[in-house]
């Protein structure tokens, strides 16, 4: 019986250590770090959006270093081909002097993949990521290659310089667990960043957990119970993003074209479970759902023309929805 409490406690301790290690490099973005870790534990992919220089790549690198996982990075450009991501079959000389075809794995074959500026790649290349992200396997020719677990994609995109970019299609966006907005650090955080990065000493990140540990943590997180009334809140929150739903608030009906899919509700609950354990609890609370609602739903709520024209953001609409959905029936 006590094993559960111990496992939860160890879970919390490990994640605290992981946050601490990542925090050596990334300063002033605790929510982003926590959300990235949640995504790592749940096995969901993260889309990071922010202007250049905010530490998105550093975050991913630090995380990969702290978890002791294989890390790879792909800089997406318009001329990047799918084979550049997935890999390609090449003619190689064998030991007997003959030649044969051999699949050369691309950078996608890693545990943590940094897809930098993913929106600069063509849709063809972006779609090559779809199967890998969802099925965690890559098919080349007649062969399907499974990706190693855990497989965790961290994609970044720059909201500026939209010329010559290819916005991610909704289907691909839905495959991300969270979309995180990386904002500017505060003054104190900026001081800390400068202090750490402008001298000779560089922070050293030591690995605190392995891929197996993360897999164990994922299994434990799936066991966290969620009461019916709490789950009902997640359902109502999801439904409230549907403009055609009777319970949808006015803001949804006015500005939302498409709401969150069931995958969005799954993301909500899974992320809330991990967050509950990170908080040392054995149950999911409504507060957990609320805290993960924005990153889990903002890229799944598609605004209509009126919303775009009025300059309304997804976060604004979701905030209104969160305030309109009652905790109790």
């Amino acid at each position: 019986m006590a094993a559960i409490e111990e496992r939860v406690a160890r879970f919390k301790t490990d994640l605290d250590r992981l946050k601490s290690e990542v925090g050596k490099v990334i300063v002033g973005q605790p929510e982003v770090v926590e959300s990235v870790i949640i995504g790592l534990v749940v096995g969901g992919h993260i889309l990071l959006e922010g202007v250049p220089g905010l530490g998105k790549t550093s975050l991913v690198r630090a995380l990969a270093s702290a978890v002791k996982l294989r890390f790879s990075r792909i800089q997406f450009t318009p001329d990047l081909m799918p084979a550049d991501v997935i890999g390609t079959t090449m003619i190689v000389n064998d030991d007997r002097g003959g030649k044969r075809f051999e699949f050369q794995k691309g950078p996608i074959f890693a545990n943590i993949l940094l897809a930098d500026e993913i929106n600069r790649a063509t849709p063809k290349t972006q779609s090559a990521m779809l199967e890998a992200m969802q099925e965690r396997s890559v098919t080349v020719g007649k062969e399907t290659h499974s990706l190693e677990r855990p497989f965790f994609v961290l994609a970044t995109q720059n909201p500026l310089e939209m010329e010559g970019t290819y916005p991610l299609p909704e289907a691909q966006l839905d495959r991300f667990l969270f979309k995180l907005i990386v904002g500017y650090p505060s003054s104190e955080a900026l001081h800390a960043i400068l202090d750490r990065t402008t001298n000779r000493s560089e922070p050293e990140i030591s690995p605190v957990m392995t891929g197996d540990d993360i897999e164990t943590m994922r299994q434990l997180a799936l066991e966290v119970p969620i009461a019916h009334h709490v789950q009902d809140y997640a359902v109502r929150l999801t439904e409230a993003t549907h403009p055609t739903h009777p319970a949808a608030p006015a803001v949804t009906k006015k500005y939302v074209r498409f709401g969150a899919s069931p995958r969005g509700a799954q993301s909500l609950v899974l992320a809330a479970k991990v967050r509950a354990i990170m908080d040392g609890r054995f149950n999911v609370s409504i507060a957990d759902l609320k805290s993960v609602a924005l990153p889990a739903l903002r890229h799944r709520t598609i605004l209509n023309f009126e919303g775009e024209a009025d300059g309304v953001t997804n976060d604004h609409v979701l905030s209104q929805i969160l305030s309109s959905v009652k905790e109790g029936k």
Partner: protein
Amino acid sequence: MNPTPNIDQHAQKDVAAGDAAAIEAAIARLNHRVRSQRAVTWLLRSAVVGGLTLAIAAVLHATWLIDPGLWPTLLIAAGGLCGLAVLLAAAWPIDPLDSARRLDAASELHDRLGTAYSLLKDARQRTDFELAQIRDAVARTRDARPERAAPWRFPREALTVFVVIGGAWGLTWLRLPAPVQQSNALRPLFLGEGPAGLQNELVPTTLPVDPVVETQLPPEKQEEVAAAIEEAKERIEALKENVAGDSEAIEVVSQLESLLKDLELERVSDQEASKKLAELDDQLEKMDASPEQQLSNDATAEALEEVGQKLEEVLEKTKLDDEKMKQALEEVAKDLQEKKYEIAEEKLKELMEMFQKLDKKDQERLAKMFENLAKQFQSPLQSQLDKMKKERDRLAKKNEENGGGSKKEKDRLNKMDRNIDQLSRKQDQDPSAQKKRNLDDLSRDMKKLADQLRRQKDEEQQKQAGQDGPEPEKKRPDQSSPEELAKKLKQMKKQMARQRMQQKAKMGAADMKELMKKRRSGEGEGEEEGKRELERLARGEKGGKPKQPGREGSEWQRSKDKLEQEWKSMSPSGDAGASKTAMTNGPETDLQAKLEDDFVAGQKGKGESFRQVLKGAASRGTGVGGYGEVHIDYSMRASRQMRDEEVPPGYQEYVEEYFRLIRER
């Protein structure tokens, strides 16, 4: 109150003992708190509703729309409502899961209790993680804060309760004057004329209430109505004297008195009063059924009847040589007994003529007869009263001669006055007071008549015996026997005539009632007449006429004129008590508009000035005339003036347009 177990005990095999109880106990604490708060809130809300009900009832009570006897029922209903509200609040179920969630939210338990409660209610096999969650929730129950989940706060309804109940209490002190209906119902009590008798006063009281007057009476008349009620009380007192001896009438008057008292003390509603008056109406209608019988109850009629009997008895013992006189007196006595007042009146006229022809012996006998008759009617109480009055007059005269008298004598005089008053009141309180008063009056008259007859006889004897003697004393005017006797008989005749008038009035009462009913149904000008009636009452006028219809030349007026003519015909003078019915406000205003053109010679300038004289108010619009004739004149004059003064053409156009617009069509 112990909470009802919500968690299936069979589903708790894997849960440590006491864990479920701990969860439920935490929830129950909050439930107690919520129930008590809800009871207070519902109590206050029901108090608001009850208070509003009482306030409405108070307003209705103040405006005489509900019976005061409903107050206990209303108070019990309001109290019952409050009690029911408290019971419902205490018994109304509370969802334990809601309570658990409130505790979680208020105590920052992050849905621990709610989740644990849900898991405990679930009958399926729980996982280790779920059991761990329950244990965690039980451990955190000590952090549950019911006082945060359901904090006590000052109920907002309390202020409303204070205002509403205070208002209702204040309204109970408000008591508007009684509605006009009561005064209307009693108004006929004022319409009777003092000595006219019972029926003349009571008949109008049975008339139905006039709803037109009732509903349209202005509020400022309320005080007048209250004064009218006071006056009604006085009239009932007077009525009680007049109905002496008639037990049925006394009963009716006493019921009227009781009803008036109830109305004054607001112990009966308008409806009850109207109902009671209707009952009295029925009784009086029964009494009206036989006017002859009714008249026999009258004190005066009884007195006259008794006079007739006594006169007959005395005539038997008196030897009158003049057989014709004796026969006439016997016939008068007989007619008086048989209530043939008109015939008796004629016989008395004959008696007056015959008296001149009586011989001295018969005159003496007649005087003795009247003296004996007077003695028979003299009541001991009246004798004593007369004696005391004589003594008092003597003492007063003595004091005047002595320059006011001593203090002792003044006190004695005052004491005698008081005794006379007491004796008079005692006499008035006698049930047959009216009858006795009539008999006393008759007794005095007859005694005087006997004295005069004797005096006349003595004077004639002196005249014959002493032709050479001193010149006889000059006869005083009141000692002229034939005239005096005629006067006395005339009084008797008047009294009978009054009886006859009363009888006529009673017979016309039914017609008047019918007329009043018609007026109530809208034939008369109810409102204005009601106001005039009240104003008359307020002025203290006690004209004996019942409610009149508001229209001249109506049936009532004809009936009234007929009665007046009859009264005049019965009255010897022919004009006593005759009312003047001529209009005093001048002729009716002529609403036909008339115009009369006229020309006034001008003192300066050329020719005459035109003027029009309005001869009357137009019934509609304004009386106009000659407009078409003067319009063209003025229009041309304006055009000429504009040309002379070089008015710009653009402005001229406006003026000409104006005259075109006001042109006669």
